């Protein structure tokens, strides 16, 4: 994931204290300047908390599976691999691109499943 899970959890904790809790205080006060903002902030934060919880449960097994798949597909490039994987992909390595696509799909499923979202549908 782009935003590392520990960072997201820490930021969410900060957001609860600094943004969501004050925002919730405004709910029900229609005349308060940020009451409109409060509901959206609280809802988005709740969505991210749900995703963070799902990630906590699924991440270790997914990363272990991806590392195993990387070793099978690209051998030594699987170890400390990201920069080498980029070079392989840029050089047109079908195996590297297939691996990156498979990893990206697994990462998408990690958040799409809790949200009930499908795989991306091409616009063609």
């Amino acid at each position, binding site marked *: 994931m782009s935003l590392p899970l520990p960072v997201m959890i820490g930021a969410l904790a900060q957001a609860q204290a600094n*943004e969501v809790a004050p925002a919730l205080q405004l709910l029900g006060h229609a005349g308060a300047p940020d009451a409109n903002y409060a509901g959206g902030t609280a809802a988005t934060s709740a969505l991210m908390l749900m995703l963070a919880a799902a990630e906590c449960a699924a991440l270790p097994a997914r990363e272990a599976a991806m590392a195993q798949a990387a070793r099978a597909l690209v051998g030594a490039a699987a170890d400390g691999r990201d920069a080498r994987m980029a070079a392989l992909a840029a050089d047109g390595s079908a195996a590297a691109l297939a691996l990156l696509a498979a990893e990206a799909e697994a990462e998408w499923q990690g958040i799409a499943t809790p949200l009930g979202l499908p795989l*991306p549908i091409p616009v063609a």
Partner: protein
Amino acid sequence: MPAEHLARFLGAQWGEPVTITGLKRFHGGSARQTYRFDATTASGRREALVLRRDPPSSLIETDRLAEYRALEAFAGTDVPVPQPLFCDTGADSFGSPGFLMREVAGGMAAGLLEPEPYGTHAAAIGRQLFTALGRIHAAAPAQAGLPAMAPQDAAPARLAHWRAAFDADRFRPEPIVDAGFQWLAANLPPPPPHVSIVHGDYRSGNFLHDGAGRLLAILDWEMVHAGDPLEDLAWACDPLWSNFSGRPGATLPLAEAISIWEAASGLTLDPVRWRWWRVFAQVQGLVIWISAAREVLDGRSHDPVLMFAGTIPYRFHALTLARTLESLK
């Protein structure tokens, strides 16, 4: 945003005391803080207005004067936009740089994850949306006060822009983005026949409709620039903005959207440039989402909207770009 601030500013502009009521901040829109309010003068004049001002931390760095000039260029034309009123590039008037425009009454915008946001009006919205885009592209950049650009610079300039943003904000290895940039650099497209106004973020969620099939206003011009019009068309047709419908902007079939855009712009879609800009759209998206995550990572923001951007759209585009690169090899 204290109402007294706005009352003082508008009172000075209109030459009489002003009372502010109904001040509310809109949720979302990380590039700007957006508020609506009613301003009533001592003589009884009443205006529903919207303030857009810079936030302390932003998803993208943008130029509010360019956005304001773009609104001025299209206000009163057949490209529907909110009417701009005042702009202050300093912090004196609104606490940070920003501008005021008239509120578009009764408008609603689609959410990213909302299925079929226009219901049975999808095709009608699509016809208006891609007609308006074509009309924007038929206008010369000078009409919006944008600097001149040679057609051959359009793609390299945008590539360099987002490459610099990526190099500044990346915080871990990104093999898919690296591979995307390498493909784009190695396959630069031919220049467009002429340079157009490019909205820069033309997509579902960035326009208002009335819920009954009428497009009310094109919003969020903060990324406007001169360039290849296919940049806009590719972004508008990216799957991320299709609400999982397979149709651009969750509106019309792609071929129909392109045909409408061609008729309104007077341009013809070049398939070579089109392929390049569609890859570019995904790479640009990933850089935006990485920059959003970087804001959170560095502790400059705890806004859940930036966490959302750094997670859901990021993973969507990582997957679509990986698959696209596979198909290009």
